[in-house]
């Protein structure tokens, strides 16, 4: 710090009004919801068809069916072989992709807006009438099997996979994040067809279109291409709150350290987590503010402590997992082997502080003004706006959620923010997962609780 008097930063100008784009909502006779927001800055459009079925709806003995189905959507429809589906979108410069997570399958197109009619036609076809050709199934099976092998070398994948097992318990719909090799080998065409038949239907789907489009035009396109989608299905049951994990989570258990042994690792990837809230829980917004204080950005406590003060990591953060059911709160960072134990300690110091002391006004203010101030940047592009509308649909948030979001962030008091996060992160009962080389870091972790060692395949190691 220099010795002279510091110059103060300049004062801001007048804030300009910011509003979430108006969303036009309609429901087709078959139950499909259509949501449109206009943004005419550039001649682009994003269209998402979101179906409320993801890995949480996988059959219990077949993890990976939802993800497999999602990949199969582009492998051919009743009217078009794979090559034509992909070619038609890509020929005009667009991209068509499918993805899935715990609660949803998303089919997304980004395209120049002049080509939107073709994109909607393809979205409709791909969602409603995939043909599941045998050759495509075998191709995807091989590809996903290779991808799984590759994932098993990725510390982030290994950490998340183990974490969700212990957080949710093996039988919970959110306990697995990917297929297993055995399930990939066992999944049949009829498993995929059954999943599609049961879970893909207009009543479980929303079409979200944002960009240089007119609501009437989108509604007409939806009528033309999606009104004929007549399917009955079964809504995915609401996931239960997590109960018992592999580590035996319960109100009285001691903290355990799950060490995923990854030979040759030069860092320990540390994850400390607990079940948090449903995304639609009214307590979500106070929790977002509390999380912002703890680890929501580079200005937050975890980063400032572990990186800027103690040189233990490149970055340390905490984040909330958005789920229709109860999602997790996860603190994470990677540290060189020699300081794995010290890094763990500093994570616990910051978690402890949440229950021990009031959050200073300056920190509360920084957290809340960040969350409100970043809003205009978050709604700058059609892709982001579409994704935010998609979240409303999947998680069941009210229609005015984004219109009132900043007011509700601003209204969170210190006790609300602190209590909401402190209640979840009880240092004695956190789930702790570390991915690293057992020989290099094992002894440093013993003081944090009994250690359970797992191999990269997810089996208990001796």
């Amino acid at each position, binding site marked *: 710090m220099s010795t002279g008097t510091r110059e103060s930063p300049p004062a801001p100008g007048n804030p300009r009004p910011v509003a979430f784009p108006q969303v036009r909502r309609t429901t087709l006779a078959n139950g499909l919801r259509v949501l449109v927001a206009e*943004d005419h800055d550039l001649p682009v459009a994003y269209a998402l068809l979101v179906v409320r079925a993801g890995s949480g709806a996988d059959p219990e003995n077949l993890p990976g069916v939802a993800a497999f189905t999602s990949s199969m959507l582009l492998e051919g429809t009743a009217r078009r072989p*794979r090559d034509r589906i992909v070619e038609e979108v890509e020929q005009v*410069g667009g991209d068509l992709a499918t993805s899935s997570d715990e609660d949803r399958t998303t089919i997304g197109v980004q395209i120049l807006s002049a080509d939107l009619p073709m994109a909607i036609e393809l979205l409709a076809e791909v969602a409603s009438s995939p043909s599941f050709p045998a050759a495509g199934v075998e191709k995807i099976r091989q590809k996903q099997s290779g991808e799984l092998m590759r994932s098993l070398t990725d510390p982030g994948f290994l950490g998340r996979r183990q974490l969700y097992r212990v957080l949710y318990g093996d039988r919970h719909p959110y306990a697995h994040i990917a297929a297993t090799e055995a399930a990939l080998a066992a999944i049949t065409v009829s498993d995929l067809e059954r999943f599609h038949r049961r879970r893909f239907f207009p009543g479980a789907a929303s079409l979200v279109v944002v960009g240089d489009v007119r609501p009437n035009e989108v509604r007409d396109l939806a009528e033309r291409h999606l009104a004929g989608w007549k399917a009955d299905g079964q809504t995915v049951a609401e996931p239960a709150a997590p109960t018992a994990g592999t580590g035996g989570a319960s109100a009285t258990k001691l903290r355990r350290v799950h060490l995923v042994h990854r030979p040759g690792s030069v860092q320990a990837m540390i994850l400390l987590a607990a079940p948090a809230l449903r995304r639609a829980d009214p307590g979500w917004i106070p929790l977002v503010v509390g999380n912002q204080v703890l680890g929501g950005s580079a200005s937050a406590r975890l980063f400032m402590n572990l990186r800027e003060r103690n040189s233990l990591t490149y970055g340390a953060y905490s984040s909330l997992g958005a789920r229709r059911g109860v999602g997790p709160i996860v603190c994470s960072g*990677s*540290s060189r082997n020699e300081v794995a134990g010290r890094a763990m300690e500093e994570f616990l110091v910051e978690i402890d502080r949440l229950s021990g002391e009031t959050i200073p006004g300056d920190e509360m203010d920084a957290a809340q003004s960040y969350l409100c101030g970043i809003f205009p940047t978050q709604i700058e592009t059609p892709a982001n706006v579409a994704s935010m509308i998609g979240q409303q649909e999947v998680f069941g948030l009210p229609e005015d959620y984004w219109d009132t979001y900043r007011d509700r962030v601003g209204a969170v008091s210190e006790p609300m923010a602190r209590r909401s996060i402190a209640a979840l992160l009880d240092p004695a009962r956190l789930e702790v997962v570390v991915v690293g080389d057992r020989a290099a870091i094992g002894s440093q972790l013993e003081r944090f609780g009994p250690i359970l060692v797992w191999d990269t395949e997810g089996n208990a190691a001796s």
Partner: protein
Amino acid sequence: MFTFPVEQFRLDNGLRVVLSEEHSAPVVAVAVYYDVGSRDEVRGRTGFAHLFEHMMFEGSENVGKFEHIRTVQRVGGVVNGTTSTDRTNYFEAVPAHYLDLVLWLEADRMRSLHVTAENFENQRQTVKEERRQSYDNQPYAQAFLRLNEVCYENFGYSHSTIGEMADLDAAPLESVREFFRTYYAPNNAVLSIAGDVDPAEVRGCVEKRFGSIARRPDPPRPDMFEPPQTHEKTAALDDALAALPAFLLAWHVPGARSPDSYALEILATVLGDGKSSRLYRRLIDQDRIAQRVTIERDERRGPDLFGAWVVCQPGLAAARVRDVVYQEIDDVVARGIAPAELAKAKNRVRARFTFGLQSALQRALRLAEYSMYHGDAELLRTELSHYQAVTLEDAQRVARTYLATANRTYLEVVPGAGR
């Protein structure tokens, strides 16, 4: 098409300024580019440009350690910096009424970096952790560093931007101040501002914040001459963290936005962009021998590389998959591409260009890069026309000229994990 207005001017101290006004969202983005990257580093100092970038967040005359980031985030800003082979950039996107705050922050550290031994040690450790997290603990990451060492004879591009651990350990504190004096001069920088601003007002702010920063001697420019490669190079790398066989290919090509770069980009698009591209279809859909295939130019100021990155399916010999890629390359060299492929590639380049300009931050970054690399941000307007002008003959000619065996490097990754 890029239809936004662009104004450019230079302050007396040599700072180049680019302004692009656009009022659809109440957001402004600021980018400051310094004309220094890892290509400017000498032996024994690898990684220094990037380590220095970290020091730019550790305090200046009126801004304390890490206060730059905290101040910008407090007002809801996005903030970061990145270092590449060719330049170092710093950027912020904030609600538009905080523009002057950001200019003040950027000007303060352009004028007066405040360096302490303690903060330098802190960032040395941070960058070493970054190297471990992004390279040393990741499968395949080392291969991308090794490829440049094999391809380039010129040290500027052959060494990594992240740097060698030994060089990071040896970096002396005095070099931070010297590096700042040499490269972080207003006359070696571009300031780019895009978004919801009034250009007349901004000119005044820019002059007020940056105008009094002293010009310094222009820094030396590296000699990037690369001797022509006269025979094929091959190498192999054991990767204990990788489970699947993989390989990289690279051919020397001219730098970004040189005359042949446009036809090369069209070629890269035909070969590897999208699920309907030639190599995706052949390797992933048809033969099912690869997990992933990427074809791209590095987009260096030059000389550049045209590269392929392929992860094979389990159990296959990388050389077998490589030979299929060679067949596809040979086919393009011998027969060129089809008119429909050319039309599709142009459509894809046009769409990518448009999608890449949606946010104020994207626009500020593109304009700054144009100004720094090509001396005129307005050239961004003509970028698409260069791609639209590429002919079938051009595509085949660049394939024949550059994708030759003698100009090629093959690096095989031998996986060691999962055995």
